């Protein structure tokens, strides 16, 4: 494999922390709903990005595949809003 391995455990720890953070934010913090939603969604997307980049190796794929992988996201957003 061309690239050097990322430290998978580190990514795992990362995800773990973020998940705990999410649950905390959702329950402890008395933030207003909109802010809450915004924070939670950004955290979720952040985690998703980590998985895609490191576990699915998107980070190390030829750019053309990355483009291909990101292509439908606008549509996904379109349908969801």
């Amino acid at each position, binding site marked *: *494999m*061309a690239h050097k391995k990322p430290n998978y455990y580190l990514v795992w720890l990362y995800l773990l922390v973020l998940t705990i953070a999410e649950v905390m934010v959702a329950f402890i913090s008395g933030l207003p709903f909109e802010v809450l939603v915004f924070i939670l969604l950004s955290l979720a997307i952040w985690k998703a990005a980590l998985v895609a980049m490191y576990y699915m190796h998107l980070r190390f794929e030829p750019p053309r595949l990355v483009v291909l992988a990101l292509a*439908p996201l606008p*549509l996904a957003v*379109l*349908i969801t809003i």
Partner: protein
Amino acid sequence: MSTTQLLAPNVTAQHWADPSHPDDRPFIRKYVFSTDHKTIGNQFMFMSLFFLLVGGALAMMIRWQLGWPGQPMPGGGVLPETMAPGGILLPEFYNSLVTMHGTFMIFFAIMPLLVGMFGNWLIPLHVGASDMAFPRLNMMSFWSAVPAGFIMLASFVVEGGAAGAGWTAYPPLSAVPEYSGVSTGQQLWCVSLIILGFSSLMGAVNYITTIVNMRAPGMTWLRMPLPIWSLFITAILILLAIPILAGAAIMLLFDQTIGTTFFLPEAGGQPLLWQHLFWYFGHPEVYILILPAMGIASEVIANGSRKPIFGYPAMVGAIVAIAFLGWIVWGHHMFQSGMNPLLGSSFMLSTMIIAVPSAIKVFNWLGTIWRGDIHFHTPMLNALAFVAMFVIGGLSGVFMASTPVDIYIHDTYFIVAHIHYVLFGGSLFAIFAGIYFWFPKFFGRMLSPTLGKIHFALTFVFYNLVFFPMHNLGLGGMMRRIYDPNQYGFLEPLQPMNTFVSVFALALGVSQLVFFFNILWSLWRGEKAPSNPWRSNSLEWGLASPPPHGNFEAMPAVYRGPYEYSYPGRGEDFWPQDEPPDGGAVHAPTGGVPIPEGVPQ
């Protein structure tokens, strides 16, 4: 990662045809559960033509009822009491007829013909591959389409009859049996489409992978024949649109069976949600039904006028543009649905813009025949008809795209006229062109040109006599999906025109038998096809008809674009893509960068 995996499987490690020892697959592997893309293409052809016949038969019944309302239909006596007591069609059966007609034609005739048949026939041959990337997946794609089709067909005989809520299946009508009188049928409709969705997905994954990864040396992106470009974009549309339909159909099925209320207002569900999901899939779907047709027409028109396609890059660009815009126009089906009128305005804009890339295609087709040397072989006739008819359908689309005008013509026969001008006049004529063009390659026999021309003439004339008056019916205010227009005083004056339409509709149906007969007859009796009957350029014409299992004996090399017709100073007026340039001057393509077609610079 090991290099063998990086490059090899894609291009070099393919199982090329081996003339030295004959193809010794057992019958069942060869003709039934075959993984050979050519066989699968043929299978798709027979399946879809069958369903085209079914859809046509249903249309004949529709037209009978509208032409002679309440009259017993000749031979209608054979239908059971629940459909047509004494040959008189019942209103609930009429609704099923319309629904099933639309469903079969769109999902089981035109779509599998364009995508299933042509996709399988053309992609590996045109890009110079030995087969699809995933032959077994390809086989599954076909063998899941078949049961889907027959489930749909079976719904006619179940309790309560076939789905009757229109091919658009708007809930609550489609979700609540008490409203429509149809229970099982409506559920089978969902199930069948979900299965068909899987079939289409498998196809799309295959096409995309094959086109991206398995192009022969020198087959750069801008040297791909236009049918491949359009099928590539179509595959992307399928890949991203079908899951939406599947999701919606599943939710609808839940509403019908386990009692959820996604689309039912009682508990806060949203009838309009279905319409948004359906049309978010639905409009890309209609471009799935036209883009491959455009590709085929381009191929045939360039061949028929012995001239390079006019503005190849623009043609490619237009395909991409249409596909992209197709994602942001779905609201134009919902102008009168209660959707926010301001959204209506923006959807009107995006919809209208699509006229522009379409314009590019139309005028480039004209540019292609301009100063050409036009040979009127049957495929060419149908391709020219495609252009002529698609323009009418497209222009009528512009009326509906204008929100205020759509207020009046929405859900009238004006829409029905539009549908048929784009789907029959567009897609189906291109399909005819394509079948006449490639049948020899895949069955080794020519279709009879005489029968072909007769079929074309009859179809073209009758077709216009049937569908053009529908514009006027629509402007007269005649609604769609009505069993008996004479219920309305203001529609009674239209009855003569309805009868007129019906007469020629029957004639149109009958004249299709010529085609039917032509195919069956030519399969056994047609004259043997040479390897390149149309003196065409793309790779498949260099092979035997039909090509051997594995297609090419060795990886072909591609030296130029597919439309090098009438190249000055060549004896022949065509120039195969894989013929090494004379003088052996190799224009080695580099990566994805195109070489100006064939022109030694």
